[in-house]
């Protein structure tokens, strides 16, 4: 239990009468992909916002690598090692892929109040950014404007930005959404190799991908985690089948 990279404990969030997050607890272990699934309106987005730091929970605690994240801003959480990608990718459209990734390298080095040295010729920023792009098989797109990229490539750039921060955990919000079968297959392969480098909390709709990738799955229904376990356990859990999967999935 103490070895968990990301620990979420008794998280609660209410919006008036709606109990959007109900006593949610789970953890992400080193080397694993932990998937969080749930039907629409289950409170996944609310939960992600609380983990990422955009929405304060009413109660409960988050730990990243033994340190609490409570009261930390989005940027402070990122510096602590929480890398994330968005459901709708959020990048600087008019900048090149490299410049987007270089921003994260710069943040990792903690040096944004330097006013003189030009960044374009700064190899201490360029080289780490290019290394990450190579790992993501994006080297050939380094000079391309983000606005010209395909949907799938943007997802990859977001993951590259997150990786450049050398995160302790990756939070991926529906990375497969909107990707064709080919893109999904590519990303699946990538995530499979990536999990050995950094554990992943995967929020995903694509059931095939989840069952293929996830080491463990938590199922969120109406703000509450109704089941934890391996793909096999979740597949055969009658509550989950009733609430979410439907019989035809088995």
């Amino acid at each position: 239990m103490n070895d968990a990279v990301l620990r979420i404990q008794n998280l609660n969030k209410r919006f008036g009468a709606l109990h959007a997050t109900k006593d949610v607890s789970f953890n992400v272990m080193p080397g694993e992909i932990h998937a969080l699934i749930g039907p629409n309106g289950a409170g996944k987005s609310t939960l992600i916002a609380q983990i990422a730091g955009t929405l304060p929970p009413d109660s409960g605690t988050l730990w990243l690598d033994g340190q609490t994240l409570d009261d930390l801003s989005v940027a402070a959480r990122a510096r602590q090692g929480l890398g994330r990608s968005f459901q709708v990718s959020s990048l600087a459209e008019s900048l090149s892929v490299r410049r987007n990734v270089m921003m994260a390298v710069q943040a990792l080095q903690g040096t944004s109040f330097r006013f003189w040295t030009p960044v374009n010729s700064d190899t201490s920023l360029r080289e780490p950014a290019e290394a990450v792009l190579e790992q993501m098989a994006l080297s050939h797109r380094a000079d391309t404007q983000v606005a010209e990229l395909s949907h799938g490539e943007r997802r990859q750039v977001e993951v590259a930005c997150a990786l450049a921060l050398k995160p302790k955990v990756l939070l991926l919000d529906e990375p497969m959404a909107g990707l064709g079968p080919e893109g999904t297959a590519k990303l699946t392969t990538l995530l499979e190799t990536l999990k050995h480098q950094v554990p992943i909390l995967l929020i995903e709709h694509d059931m095939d991908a989840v069952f293929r990738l996830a080491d463990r799955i938590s199922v969120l229904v109406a703000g509450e985690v109704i089941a934890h376990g391996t793909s096999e356990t979740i597949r055969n859990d009658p509550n989950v089948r009733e609430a979410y999967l439907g019989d035809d999935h088995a």
Partner: protein
Amino acid sequence: MTQSHTLTATGLARTTRFRLDREGWISLSLLLILVVGATVAYLAGERFFVNLASRMVIIALAGVGLNLALGFGGMVSFGHAAYFGLGGYVAGIGAFHAFDMTPALGIPFLPNGSDQMIPLWLTAIALCGLLAYGIGRLSLGTSGVYFIMITLAFAQMIYYFAISWPTYGGEDGLPIYIRNQLWGLNTNNSLVFFFLCFGLLVLALSFCHRLLGSRFGAALTMARLNPIRLATSGVEPRPIKLMAFVISGMITGLAGALFADLNGFVGTSMLDWHRSGEIMVIVILGGVGRLYGPVAGAMLFVAMEFWLGGLTEYWQFFLGLVLLAVVLFARGGVFGLLAGRSRHE
């Protein structure tokens, strides 16, 4: 090794100060027109036109300041007259006490007023930085229309404060009888004064160029384009924007000090919200977020003010038409029209 060498080489080639592509040529031409224009006018004995060129340069400098916040930081400040005016009052009040040989602001512990430009400029820059820090800290919690309104409100507070302070002329303003001095230079000479202002403008432009290419500039660009991405990358957007806002106020304040010395007068008209609008207009006219945009904008603005203003007192109607045309048809402003779209890395 070889690869990192070539990387550095191309990197250097890219950042060389005046790589003279089209944008570089246009920028250089604008500066040359000012220099040649002022010099020719001086030789022809037309002091008025030298001062007109100085006016262009000083208003351009104020615009360069605002452009850092508005164009590069995405902060639409409608209160930059506060810094312009404060800079002006520093020059005026300094000269006032130097003339009277009394301590600054009449407070006994303070040193006497000064008629030396360097200490006055430094004081103007420091005070405007402090003021911008205070206003920025309180305003940057808001965005959009609220940011516009709150910066306007702060500037108006300072405007009314100046009106109600009789020591320095209140509504009547404060004359500067003798232009402030700089070492052994004859600052009363219109061409000398022009080149002083011009030198500071070039300095400010080079400073901003360097700043925008730095790590800070990269963070500021990201804060404008996508603050969520910046925060997700681990950098707090607010301190970055606040720093840019402070530097912006400092540059505009320096322009204010020069403006007061140019006119031999500082009054509440320098703090008026019309003035904030005017600085904003020259930035938009010239090209928002283009380094040399305010230079083009100020030249066009002052030229129109002079020629159209001589023909009709309704010249601002035509200014409005031009502004409308720029906003509708030339988003990059006059500078964008001349130099083409801006390139992004």
